Protein backbone atom coordinates (compact mmCIF):
# COMPACT_ATOMS: atom_id res chain seq x y z
CA UNK A 1 0.00 0.00 0.00
CA UNK A 2 2.89 2.32 0.79
CA UNK A 3 4.38 2.21 -2.64
CA UNK A 4 1.26 2.99 -4.68
CA UNK A 5 0.54 5.91 -2.35
CA UNK A 6 3.96 7.30 -2.89
CA UNK A 7 3.55 6.82 -6.62
CA UNK A 8 0.20 8.55 -6.51
CA UNK A 9 1.69 11.50 -4.66
CA UNK A 10 4.48 11.69 -7.14
CA UNK A 11 2.06 11.52 -10.03
CA UNK A 12 -0.05 14.27 -8.50
CA UNK A 13 3.06 16.38 -7.99
CA UNK A 14 4.08 15.84 -11.58
CA UNK A 15 0.61 16.74 -12.81
CA UNK A 16 0.59 19.95 -10.76
CA UNK A 17 4.00 20.86 -12.08
CA UNK A 18 2.92 20.14 -15.61
CA UNK A 19 -0.18 22.31 -15.39
CA UNK A 20 1.88 25.04 -13.82
CA UNK A 21 4.50 25.05 -16.56
CA UNK A 22 1.72 24.71 -19.11
CA UNK A 23 0.05 27.77 -17.70
CA UNK A 24 3.37 29.56 -17.59
CA UNK A 25 4.23 28.76 -21.21
CA UNK A 26 0.74 29.79 -22.33
CA UNK A 27 1.25 33.18 -20.74
CA UNK A 28 4.67 33.35 -22.29
CA UNK A 29 3.08 32.56 -25.64
CA UNK A 30 0.51 35.27 -25.21
CA UNK A 31 3.26 37.77 -24.56
CA UNK A 32 5.13 36.65 -27.65
CA UNK A 33 1.99 36.59 -29.78
CA UNK A 34 0.99 40.11 -28.80
CA UNK A 35 4.55 41.30 -29.24
CA UNK A 36 4.58 39.96 -32.81
CA UNK A 37 1.19 41.47 -33.49
CA UNK A 38 1.62 44.93 -31.95
CA UNK A 39 5.28 45.69 -31.47
CA UNK A 40 7.48 43.75 -33.91
CA UNK A 41 6.61 45.96 -36.89
CA UNK A 42 8.54 48.74 -35.26
CA UNK A 43 10.89 47.19 -32.73
CA UNK A 44 11.54 44.17 -35.01
CA UNK A 45 11.20 40.47 -34.20
CA UNK A 46 14.58 40.44 -32.47
CA UNK A 47 14.01 43.68 -30.56
CA UNK A 48 16.81 45.44 -32.44
CA UNK A 49 14.80 48.56 -33.38
CA UNK A 50 15.64 50.58 -36.50
CA UNK A 51 18.87 52.57 -36.59
CA UNK A 52 18.24 55.97 -34.93
CA UNK A 53 14.51 55.96 -35.62
CA UNK A 54 13.16 53.29 -33.31
CA UNK A 55 14.91 52.38 -30.08
CA UNK A 56 15.93 48.79 -29.39
CA UNK A 57 14.33 46.64 -26.72
CA UNK A 58 17.21 44.18 -26.83
CA UNK A 59 19.71 45.22 -24.21
CA UNK A 60 17.95 48.58 -23.66
CA UNK A 61 19.00 50.32 -20.45
CA UNK A 62 15.63 52.12 -20.59
CA UNK A 63 13.79 48.93 -19.56
CA UNK A 64 15.49 49.07 -16.20
CA UNK A 65 16.00 52.79 -15.71
CA UNK A 66 12.35 53.57 -16.54
CA UNK A 67 10.80 50.35 -15.33
CA UNK A 68 8.06 52.28 -13.49
CA UNK A 69 6.82 53.90 -16.71
CA UNK A 70 6.77 50.97 -19.10
CA UNK A 71 3.11 50.00 -18.64
CA UNK A 72 1.99 53.58 -19.30
CA UNK A 73 4.22 53.84 -22.40
CA UNK A 74 2.41 50.86 -23.90
CA UNK A 75 -1.06 51.98 -22.87
CA UNK A 76 -0.71 55.63 -23.85
CA UNK A 77 2.21 55.79 -26.24
CA UNK A 78 5.28 57.96 -25.98
CA UNK A 79 6.20 61.25 -27.64
CA UNK A 80 9.11 63.61 -27.33
CA UNK A 81 12.80 62.94 -27.19
CA UNK A 82 13.99 59.93 -25.18
CA UNK A 83 17.48 58.54 -24.67
CA UNK A 84 18.07 54.80 -24.95
CA UNK A 85 21.59 53.41 -24.55
CA UNK A 86 22.98 56.91 -24.99
CA UNK A 87 21.17 57.63 -28.29
CA UNK A 88 18.35 60.11 -28.88
CA UNK A 89 15.03 58.97 -30.35
CA UNK A 90 12.12 61.20 -31.23
CA UNK A 91 9.76 59.39 -33.53
CA UNK A 92 6.78 58.86 -31.27
CA UNK A 93 5.17 55.58 -30.38
CA UNK A 94 1.40 55.04 -30.73
CA UNK A 95 -0.86 54.17 -27.79
CA UNK A 96 -2.32 50.68 -27.33
CA UNK A 97 -5.39 51.56 -25.28
CA UNK A 98 -7.11 48.32 -26.24
CA UNK A 99 -4.63 46.25 -24.22
CA UNK A 100 -5.62 45.41 -20.64
CA UNK A 101 -3.35 45.03 -17.63
CA UNK A 102 -2.99 41.26 -18.06
CA UNK A 103 -2.01 41.57 -21.70
CA UNK A 104 0.42 44.38 -20.95
CA UNK A 105 1.99 42.27 -18.19
CA UNK A 106 2.52 39.39 -20.60
CA UNK A 107 4.01 41.59 -23.29
CA UNK A 108 6.34 43.28 -20.81
CA UNK A 109 7.45 39.95 -19.42
CA UNK A 110 8.17 38.70 -22.91
CA UNK A 111 10.26 41.84 -23.54
CA UNK A 112 12.05 41.61 -20.20
CA UNK A 113 13.09 38.00 -20.79
CA UNK A 114 13.69 37.84 -24.56
CA UNK A 115 16.28 39.13 -27.05
CA UNK A 116 18.99 38.31 -24.52
CA UNK A 117 17.31 40.40 -21.79
CA UNK A 118 17.10 38.96 -18.31
CA UNK A 119 15.34 41.72 -16.40
CA UNK A 120 12.99 41.27 -13.47
CA UNK A 121 9.48 40.17 -14.45
CA UNK A 122 6.29 42.14 -13.75
CA UNK A 123 3.26 41.07 -11.73
CA UNK A 124 -0.22 42.11 -12.81
CA UNK A 125 -0.46 44.05 -9.56
CA UNK A 126 2.64 46.09 -10.39
CA UNK A 127 1.31 46.86 -13.87
CA UNK A 128 -2.05 47.84 -12.40
CA UNK A 129 -0.41 50.29 -10.01
CA UNK A 130 1.60 51.82 -12.84
CA UNK A 131 -1.51 52.19 -14.97
CA UNK A 132 -3.37 53.91 -12.13
CA UNK A 133 -0.75 56.64 -12.24
CA UNK A 134 -1.44 57.48 -15.89
CA UNK A 135 -5.19 56.92 -15.87
CA UNK A 136 -5.86 60.62 -16.37
CA UNK A 137 -4.50 60.28 -19.90
CA UNK A 138 -7.54 58.19 -20.83
CA UNK A 139 -9.91 61.01 -19.95
CA UNK A 140 -8.41 63.55 -22.28
Amino acid sequence: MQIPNKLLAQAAGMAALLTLTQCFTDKQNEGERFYTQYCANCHMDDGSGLRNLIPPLAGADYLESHRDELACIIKHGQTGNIVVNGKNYNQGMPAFEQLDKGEITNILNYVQTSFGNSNERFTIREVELQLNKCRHLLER
Partner: protein
Amino acid sequence: MNRSSISNSGFVILLVLLAGLLQGCSGGPDANSELPYLGERQVVQRESGGQQVADTVYHRIPDFAFINQDSQVVTSLTLQDKVYVTDFFFTTCPTICPKMKSQMLRVYEAFKDEPQLVLLSHTIDPAHDTVAVLRDYAERLQVSSDKWHFVTGEKDSIYDIALQYMVTAQEDQEEPGGFVHSGAFVLVDQNRHVRGIYDGTDPAQVDKLIRDIPALLDSNKKKKKKQDADTQ
Protein backbone atom coordinates in the same frame (compact mmCIF):
# COMPACT_ATOMS: atom_id res chain seq x y z
CA MET B 1 58.47 20.57 -69.23
CA ASN B 2 57.94 21.56 -72.85
CA ARG B 3 54.99 19.33 -73.27
CA SER B 4 53.22 20.70 -70.28
CA SER B 5 53.68 24.31 -71.37
CA ILE B 6 52.28 23.48 -74.78
CA SER B 7 49.23 21.83 -73.35
CA ASN B 8 48.84 24.78 -70.99
CA SER B 9 48.71 27.29 -73.80
CA GLY B 10 46.32 25.00 -75.61
CA PHE B 11 44.09 25.17 -72.58
CA VAL B 12 44.24 28.97 -72.51
CA ILE B 13 43.27 29.17 -76.18
CA LEU B 14 40.35 26.88 -75.50
CA LEU B 15 39.23 29.13 -72.65
CA VAL B 16 39.43 32.24 -74.79
CA LEU B 17 37.42 30.52 -77.49
CA LEU B 18 34.81 29.44 -74.99
CA ALA B 19 34.57 32.92 -73.52
CA GLY B 20 34.05 34.34 -77.00
CA LEU B 21 31.31 31.83 -77.66
CA LEU B 22 29.57 32.60 -74.40
CA GLN B 23 29.69 36.33 -75.01
CA GLY B 24 28.37 35.85 -78.48
CA CYS B 25 25.23 34.18 -77.28
CA SER B 26 24.44 36.30 -74.25
CA GLY B 27 24.31 39.67 -76.03
CA GLY B 28 20.92 39.00 -77.65
CA PRO B 29 17.85 41.13 -77.09
CA ASP B 30 16.35 38.86 -74.42
CA ALA B 31 19.42 38.65 -72.25
CA ASN B 32 17.25 39.68 -69.30
CA SER B 33 14.15 37.81 -70.34
CA GLU B 34 14.05 35.94 -67.03
CA LEU B 35 12.40 38.95 -65.39
CA PRO B 36 8.90 39.58 -66.74
CA TYR B 37 7.49 42.91 -67.89
CA LEU B 38 4.57 43.68 -65.60
CA GLY B 39 1.49 45.73 -66.29
CA GLU B 40 -0.68 46.21 -69.33
CA ARG B 41 0.93 45.91 -72.70
CA GLN B 42 -0.17 47.02 -76.12
CA VAL B 43 0.61 45.61 -79.51
CA VAL B 44 1.27 48.36 -82.00
CA GLN B 45 1.40 47.76 -85.76
CA ARG B 46 3.93 49.61 -87.79
CA GLU B 47 5.30 49.51 -91.30
CA SER B 48 8.81 48.38 -91.93
CA GLY B 49 10.12 47.83 -95.43
CA GLY B 50 6.61 47.52 -96.83
CA GLN B 51 5.64 44.92 -94.24
CA GLN B 52 3.37 45.14 -91.22
CA VAL B 53 5.34 44.52 -88.03
CA ALA B 54 3.80 44.11 -84.59
CA ASP B 55 5.64 45.76 -81.71
CA THR B 56 4.80 45.09 -78.10
CA VAL B 57 4.73 48.25 -76.02
CA TYR B 58 5.18 47.55 -72.34
CA HIS B 59 3.65 49.51 -69.52
CA ARG B 60 5.99 52.40 -68.75
CA ILE B 61 6.08 54.72 -65.73
CA PRO B 62 5.20 58.23 -66.99
CA ASP B 63 7.36 61.30 -66.33
CA PHE B 64 7.31 62.52 -62.76
CA ALA B 65 8.82 65.22 -60.56
CA PHE B 66 9.04 65.12 -56.77
CA ILE B 67 11.16 66.79 -54.12
CA ASN B 68 13.59 64.82 -51.97
CA GLN B 69 14.96 65.18 -48.44
CA ASP B 70 17.60 67.66 -49.65
CA SER B 71 14.95 69.84 -51.39
CA GLN B 72 16.33 68.59 -54.70
CA VAL B 73 13.93 67.87 -57.53
CA VAL B 74 13.91 64.19 -58.43
CA THR B 75 12.50 63.47 -61.88
CA SER B 76 12.42 60.63 -64.31
CA LEU B 77 15.56 62.24 -65.78
CA THR B 78 17.38 61.99 -62.44
CA LEU B 79 16.79 58.26 -62.60
CA GLN B 80 17.54 57.90 -66.29
CA ASP B 81 19.61 54.81 -67.10
CA LYS B 82 19.30 53.58 -63.54
CA VAL B 83 17.57 50.61 -62.07
CA TYR B 84 15.48 51.60 -59.07
CA VAL B 85 13.41 50.09 -56.30
CA THR B 86 10.47 52.14 -55.11
CA ASP B 87 7.93 51.99 -52.29
CA PHE B 88 5.22 54.05 -50.56
CA PHE B 89 5.16 54.81 -46.84
CA PHE B 90 4.68 57.59 -44.29
CA THR B 91 6.89 58.54 -41.39
CA THR B 92 4.21 58.25 -38.71
CA CYS B 93 2.97 54.88 -39.96
CA PRO B 94 2.09 52.72 -36.94
CA THR B 95 2.10 49.42 -38.84
CA ILE B 96 4.35 47.87 -41.48
CA CYS B 97 6.55 50.82 -42.51
CA PRO B 98 9.46 50.33 -40.11
CA LYS B 99 9.65 46.69 -41.18
CA MET B 100 9.66 47.75 -44.82
CA LYS B 101 12.38 50.25 -44.10
CA SER B 102 14.52 47.66 -42.34
CA GLN B 103 14.17 45.41 -45.40
CA MET B 104 14.89 48.31 -47.78
CA LEU B 105 18.05 48.92 -45.76
CA ARG B 106 19.15 45.40 -46.73
CA VAL B 107 18.80 46.35 -50.42
CA TYR B 108 20.64 49.61 -49.69
CA GLU B 109 23.53 47.80 -48.03
CA ALA B 110 23.71 45.09 -50.71
CA PHE B 111 24.10 47.68 -53.52
CA LYS B 112 25.93 50.40 -51.62
CA ASP B 113 28.75 50.43 -54.15
CA GLU B 114 26.58 50.08 -57.26
CA PRO B 115 25.83 53.61 -58.53
CA GLN B 116 23.39 52.26 -61.14
CA LEU B 117 20.91 51.20 -58.45
CA VAL B 118 18.92 53.78 -56.49
CA LEU B 119 16.03 53.67 -54.04
CA LEU B 120 12.97 55.91 -54.17
CA SER B 121 10.54 56.08 -51.23
CA HIS B 122 7.39 58.17 -51.67
CA THR B 123 5.48 59.53 -48.69
CA ILE B 124 1.72 59.12 -49.01
CA ASP B 125 1.20 61.72 -46.27
CA PRO B 126 2.73 64.86 -47.85
CA ALA B 127 0.74 67.13 -45.50
CA HIS B 128 2.78 65.85 -42.56
CA ASP B 129 5.91 64.56 -44.27
CA THR B 130 7.54 67.78 -45.38
CA VAL B 131 11.10 67.98 -46.68
CA ALA B 132 12.32 68.69 -43.15
CA VAL B 133 10.51 65.65 -41.73
CA LEU B 134 11.88 63.44 -44.51
CA ARG B 135 15.38 64.76 -43.98
CA ASP B 136 15.21 63.94 -40.27
CA TYR B 137 13.88 60.47 -41.11
CA ALA B 138 16.65 59.78 -43.65
CA GLU B 139 19.31 61.07 -41.28
CA ARG B 140 18.08 58.81 -38.52
CA LEU B 141 18.21 55.90 -40.95
CA GLN B 142 21.79 56.98 -41.70
CA VAL B 143 21.44 56.72 -45.47
CA SER B 144 22.87 58.91 -48.20
CA SER B 145 20.54 60.99 -50.34
CA ASP B 146 22.13 60.23 -53.69
CA LYS B 147 21.42 56.56 -53.15
CA TRP B 148 18.06 56.72 -51.41
CA HIS B 149 15.59 59.49 -52.21
CA PHE B 150 12.71 60.14 -49.81
CA VAL B 151 10.29 62.21 -51.85
CA THR B 152 7.19 64.27 -51.30
CA GLY B 153 5.02 66.28 -53.69
CA GLU B 154 1.45 66.98 -54.71
CA LYS B 155 -0.81 64.49 -53.03
CA ASP B 156 -2.60 63.66 -56.26
CA SER B 157 0.58 63.09 -58.21
CA ILE B 158 1.82 60.70 -55.54
CA TYR B 159 -1.39 58.70 -55.51
CA ASP B 160 -1.50 58.68 -59.32
CA ILE B 161 2.04 57.41 -59.66
CA ALA B 162 1.33 54.70 -57.07
CA LEU B 163 -1.30 53.38 -59.47
CA GLN B 164 1.29 53.33 -62.25
CA TYR B 165 3.54 51.19 -60.05
CA MET B 166 0.47 49.02 -59.35
CA VAL B 167 0.68 49.77 -55.61
CA THR B 168 -2.26 50.48 -53.31
CA ALA B 169 -2.07 53.85 -51.56
CA GLN B 170 -5.13 55.63 -50.25
CA GLU B 171 -6.38 57.77 -47.44
CA ASP B 172 -8.74 55.89 -45.15
CA GLN B 173 -9.78 57.12 -41.74
CA GLU B 174 -10.66 53.57 -40.68
CA GLU B 175 -7.08 52.38 -41.05
CA PRO B 176 -4.42 52.74 -38.35
CA GLY B 177 -2.58 55.97 -39.08
CA GLY B 178 -5.21 57.09 -41.60
CA PHE B 179 -3.91 55.42 -44.76
CA VAL B 180 -4.13 52.07 -46.50
CA HIS B 181 -1.08 51.10 -48.41
CA SER B 182 0.69 47.97 -49.47
CA GLY B 183 4.19 47.00 -48.40
CA ALA B 184 5.26 46.40 -51.99
CA PHE B 185 8.76 47.03 -53.31
CA VAL B 186 8.62 47.67 -57.05
CA LEU B 187 11.65 46.96 -59.24
CA VAL B 188 11.92 49.27 -62.25
CA ASP B 189 14.44 48.97 -65.07
CA GLN B 190 16.44 51.57 -67.01
CA ASN B 191 13.51 52.16 -69.37
CA ARG B 192 10.99 52.64 -66.56
CA HIS B 193 9.37 49.28 -67.10
CA VAL B 194 8.14 47.48 -63.99
CA ARG B 195 10.05 44.19 -63.75
CA GLY B 196 9.10 42.86 -60.35
CA ILE B 197 6.84 43.45 -57.34
CA TYR B 198 7.93 42.06 -53.98
CA ASP B 199 6.44 42.04 -50.49
CA GLY B 200 8.72 44.43 -48.64
CA THR B 201 7.79 42.99 -45.25
CA ASP B 202 8.87 39.45 -46.17
CA PRO B 203 12.62 38.82 -45.87
CA ALA B 204 12.44 35.86 -48.30
CA GLN B 205 10.91 38.02 -51.03
CA VAL B 206 13.47 40.73 -50.39
CA ASP B 207 16.18 38.06 -50.77
CA LYS B 208 14.73 37.37 -54.21
CA LEU B 209 14.71 41.07 -55.06
CA ILE B 210 18.38 41.32 -54.11
CA ARG B 211 19.08 38.32 -56.35
CA ASP B 212 17.02 39.74 -59.26
CA ILE B 213 18.55 43.23 -59.41
CA PRO B 214 21.93 42.17 -60.87
CA ALA B 215 20.16 40.64 -63.88
CA LEU B 216 18.90 44.09 -64.86
CA LEU B 217 22.23 45.77 -64.14
CA ASP B 218 24.12 43.18 -66.20
CA SER B 219 21.79 43.32 -69.15
CA ASN B 220 22.29 47.06 -69.27
CA LYS B 221 26.05 46.68 -69.22
CA LYS B 222 25.86 44.20 -72.08
CA LYS B 223 23.62 46.51 -74.09
CA LYS B 224 26.03 49.37 -73.44
CA LYS B 225 28.91 47.28 -74.69
CA LYS B 226 26.97 46.33 -77.76
CA GLN B 227 26.08 49.95 -78.44
CA ASP B 228 29.70 50.98 -78.04
CA ALA B 229 30.71 48.25 -80.43
CA ASP B 230 28.00 49.31 -82.90
CA THR B 231 29.08 52.93 -82.91
CA GLN B 232 32.73 52.11 -83.46
